[in-house]
């Protein structure tokens, strides 16, 4: 009887195992190759790039208070879609408001919102932003989840969770809301404005006047 050389027996016996091993190694390598591809969505990248720019402005001690405020406002106008936010906060009263009132409201809201946003962003001064993920809300909308790392706090302290609602329209990404620990600012403003209008017979000019006063007080 013909005997195969010893090595052939071994080869024949181990060939399926080697094949399986090779497939596993390839699969593992492929998975490892694919993993970085899902690292950052465009919305996540947008937040990583831009919000850190805003924090850099706030952390820049060489700027005067006025310079910091001006630069930060320019940054905020580029980051957000203020018109969309303003429209949302009027709720059902937007439908009954005149075009002139709506235009005046947009202007007043912009001043007010920029002052308010700066107040809240000032809290993150000295901190760094770290994107932790995102989830979709609609085809053109997603929520980017981040944490603010505060080097002044001990490593045990739970980092502050700050999320950004990002919309992509007309080839441009923009933030239309942000939340701190699950509380969304735009929702809060809408609740306030509609409640205020409810108590003032839906009079949008009264709201505009109050917004202007408030913006001055905040500054």
């Amino acid at each position, binding site marked *: 009887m013909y005997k195969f050389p010893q090595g052939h027996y071994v080869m024949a016996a181990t060939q399926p195992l080697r094949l399986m091993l090779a497939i596993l190694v390839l699969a593992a390598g492929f998975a490892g190759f694919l993993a970085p591809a899902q690292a950052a969505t465009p919305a996540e990248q947008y937040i990583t790039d831009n919000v850190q720019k805003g924090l850099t402005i706030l952390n820049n001690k060489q700027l005067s208070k006025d310079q910091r405020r001006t630069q930060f406002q320019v940054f905020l106008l580029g980051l957000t879609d203020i018109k969309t936010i303003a429209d949302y906060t009027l*709720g059902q009263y937007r439908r009954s408001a005149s075009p002139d009132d709506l235009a005046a409201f947009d202007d007043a809201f912009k001043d007010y919102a920029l002052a308010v946003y700066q107040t809240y962003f000032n809290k993150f001064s000295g901190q760094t932003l770290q994107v932790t993920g995102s989830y979709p809300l609609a085809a053109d909308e997603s929520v980017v989840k981040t944490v603010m790392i505060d080097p002044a706090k001990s490593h045990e302290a739970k980092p502050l*969770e700050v999320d950004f609602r990002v919309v992509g329209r007309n080839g441009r990404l923009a933030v239309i809301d942000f939340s701190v620990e*699950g509380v*969304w600012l735009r929702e809060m403003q*809408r609740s*306030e404005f509609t409640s205020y209008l*409810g108590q003032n017979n839906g009079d949008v000019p009264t709201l505009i006047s109050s917004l202007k006063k*408030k913006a001055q007080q*905040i500054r």
Partner: protein
Amino acid sequence: MRKFLPFAAILAALCLSACGTSSPDALANNDPYEATNREIFAYNQKLDDWTLHPTARSYNRNIPQPLRESIHNTLTTLDLPVTFANDVLQGESKRATQTLTRFTLNSIVGLAGLFDVASGMGIPEHSEDFGQTLAVWGMDEGPYIVLPLFGPAPPRDAVGRVVDIFFDPTIYIRIKQHPWWIVGRNYFTLLDLRARNMETVDDVERNSLDYYAATRSLYRQYRANEIHNGAPGAPQPSEE
């Protein structure tokens, strides 16, 4: 935060609330007793301005940060049995294990909760209460109600706070039944909460056109986030 909530206070508030009038906006906001709620809110705000706010500011200024942190750690460790009971009732086995581990580590290694050893070991803090458990079981929040002294307490959350009292093992320890224990612990819990959120609360008040409506929205959103354990679902899906 757990707060002792006498049934009498709930009943009194419900009776007061029944006197309120309901505007279409109030009904749309599920706040049918808005007029009464606003009066109680104004009263609570004055109380805060006169007592809690200055005390919390003084506490922040005069008590060193590490000591404040240790007081906070002790208070949250005392709350962990309640969190554990509610983790179990919600079927959250992983979070229940985390809570049990946190309690064991922080009580023993962390010297009766003075030090948060567990967070340093990557076991994060979380909080559960029976109001959240009722929400997980499908109960609606009910109308928005503000109670004197205790602040926002819609029926689901008010019931939850009362039930949580019985999940707290310290009330069954005879030596701890002294009223000063209950008063002292709740006072420090309130002081700790106010002091830790001093700037945020002040900012919301300063930036608001309608502080009552802002607080109502903040409370509801914060509770929704707690009920979802921070998972997606809190933001409104789309514009009108």
